[in-house]
């Protein structure tokens, strides 16, 4: 690229910077990224700043509507539920339960899944074929059914849900990593590195890994939204977080009995969860587009 400005040093953006710049150009993705950051902030800080404890029962204010309705009370911003617990505080704590745990679970699955996937992707012959069949078998079971079965073995509860979701997410990471490693291995720069006498591990670490890290981040964004859906779905079915827990799915399932009397109990957790899922999905989508189009200026 010819430059008019020959005196100053010109900085060419690296591939990551290019992708990041492309990502920021899309306003919708950028806004959603800020929302995700906000949710992460709430998940980390939220439990310390929530106005009430999520289990604190204020028997004087039972089933109070949100404060913008005429019957509402501004001390309980989003109203209270049937036991007089503040919905706003419960939503904040639910953020760290549903969204925070999803982030951590997806990260755990990423670490385990990518290492297994790297092993599988680099191996050849009968070992990899056995592994593939095993993977196909697990991936063909609907994820919620698998999670339900694991919960059935371990017994209901939020802790066991976390294990179940982790075990469900790992094969997806393994599958993804394996595919991208296979694709990279066919390329010429790998052959070049191999001709230079690089060992398999060296190739994996220095040549392949920097090239696949973006697809793995993409898979991570998918995994976070899948984990959130699964945790909330199990909570909703009464198999995950138990009744009374501020987990979003459990809150929704608690609201069913009161849906006619107190519709805000069903609507508010749903909207929060929907917003969170939408922004995570949109960030993933924007990331994919940015990676696809980053070379076009």
């Amino acid at each position, binding site marked *: 690229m010819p430059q008019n400005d020959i005196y100053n040093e010109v900085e060419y953006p690296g591939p990551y910077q290019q992708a990041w710049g492309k990502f920021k150009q899309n306003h919708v993705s950028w806004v959603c990224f800020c929302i995700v950051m906000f949710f992460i902030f709430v998940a980390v800080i939220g439990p310390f700043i929530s106005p009430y404890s999520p289990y604190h029962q204020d028997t004087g204010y039972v089933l109070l509507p949100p404060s913008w309705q005429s019957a509402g009370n501004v001390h309980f911003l989003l109203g209270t539920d049937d036991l007089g617990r503040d919905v706003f505080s419960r939503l904040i704590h639910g953020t760290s339960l549903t969204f925070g745990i999803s982030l951590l679970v997806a990260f755990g699955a990423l670490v385990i899944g990518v290492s297994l996937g790297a092993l599988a992707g680099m191996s050849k012959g009968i070992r990899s074929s056995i592994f593939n*069949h*095993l993977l*196909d*078998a*697990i991936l*063909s*079971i*609907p*994820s*919620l*059914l698998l999670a*339900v*079965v694991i*919960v*059935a*073995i371990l*017994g*209901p509860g939020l802790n066991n849900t976390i294990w179940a979701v982790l075990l469900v997410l790992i094969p997806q990471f393994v599958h993804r990593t394996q595919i991208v490693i296979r694709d990279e291995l066919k390329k010429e720069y790998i052959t070049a590195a191999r001709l230079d006498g690089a060992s398999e591990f060296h190739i994996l670490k220095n040549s392949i890994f920097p090239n696949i890290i973006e697809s793995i981040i993409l898979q991570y964004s998918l995994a976070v*939204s899948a984990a959130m*859906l699964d945790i*909330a*779905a199990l909570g*909703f*079915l*009464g*198999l995950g977080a138990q009744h009374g827990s501020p987990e979003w*799915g459990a809150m*929704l*399932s608690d*609201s*069913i009995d009161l*849906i*006619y009397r107190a*519709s805000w109990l*069903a*609507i508010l957790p*749903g909207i929060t*969860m*929907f917003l969170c*899922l*939408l922004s995570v*999905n*949109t960030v993933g*989508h924007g990331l994919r587009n940015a990676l696809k189009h980053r070379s076009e200026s």
Partner: protein
Amino acid sequence: MFVYLLRRINLLFTTLIVISVMSFSLGHLFPGDPVINFSGKPSLTYSEYQDLSQTLALDKSYFEQYLAYLKRSFNGDFGVSFSSQKPILDEFLRVLPASIELSLYALLVTLVFGLPLGLLAGIKNNRLIDRIIFSVATILNSIPIFWVGLLFILIFTLNMNWLPMSGRLTLLYEVPSITGFLLVDIALSDLANKSYVYTDALRHLILPTATLAVLPATLVIGMMRSSVIHVMGMPYIKAAQTKGLTSWQLITRHVFRNALLPIIPQFGLLFNTLVTSTMITEVIFSWPGIGNWIIEAIYQRDFPAIQASLLIVASMMISINVLLEIAHMMVNPLMRKEFNATK
């Protein structure tokens, strides 16, 4: 082609074996005694226990136990349910039609709405209509299905009072179960006022079907849209345009068919979401299907039922996936060419 079929069938069999090993090991993994978990009979005397242990081959090595389990599964003997003490296969076949009926209608709705909308969005790529369809699909894709169900109940049942909330039929009508498919059963039955029964059944169907169809429809729109965009960039579309085809001819003859082919194998993903969503939808709308049955089984810690449902549902999913892939191979000449060339 023959080699390809052989490879697919090999894959199908190995996967089925892995699934059956998993399902078999569940019997040992579940809390409680394996004999009770496999047979489903909770209270046994000592001699009965010994007999059962012999017939189920549970006193032998794990490998022989597994073979015996396979044999029983092929004969359709999954033991009896803890809660009802009836054979699990009968229970399963009793609830299966309701689920299939619901998913079939949802699939129909999905395809009727998803394919044309995806086609339209793909053809009008980057125009206003595409933006609208694609954004709405993205937004709907992120709504958790259990919340959609609750919202539908809240809006259409409680506030508007238009549609019924749960079940398949008002208790007023009693339709004898012959095939298990409600709409067929009504036709076969000798009820006096069939049209009323039909309206009632259809009114019960609307909300669950709509809830179930939301997520797959957004998936289909996304798949169809990107496939159509890919096809529209192909040289043969340019050639057809130069020949002077009207856009209607172009779409029906070239775009639609060629765009539909590559997304056939992705329908497996669709079935996967459909099964997952069916479980939740059935619980919300008290639909007497498999999802409801499995959740009920877990509440009651009915281990033989959970074990059998994992085996049957997973096997169904795998078979559907493999069949879709084979069908794709048969109808898509491009795939055949690729396969013949690489061998």
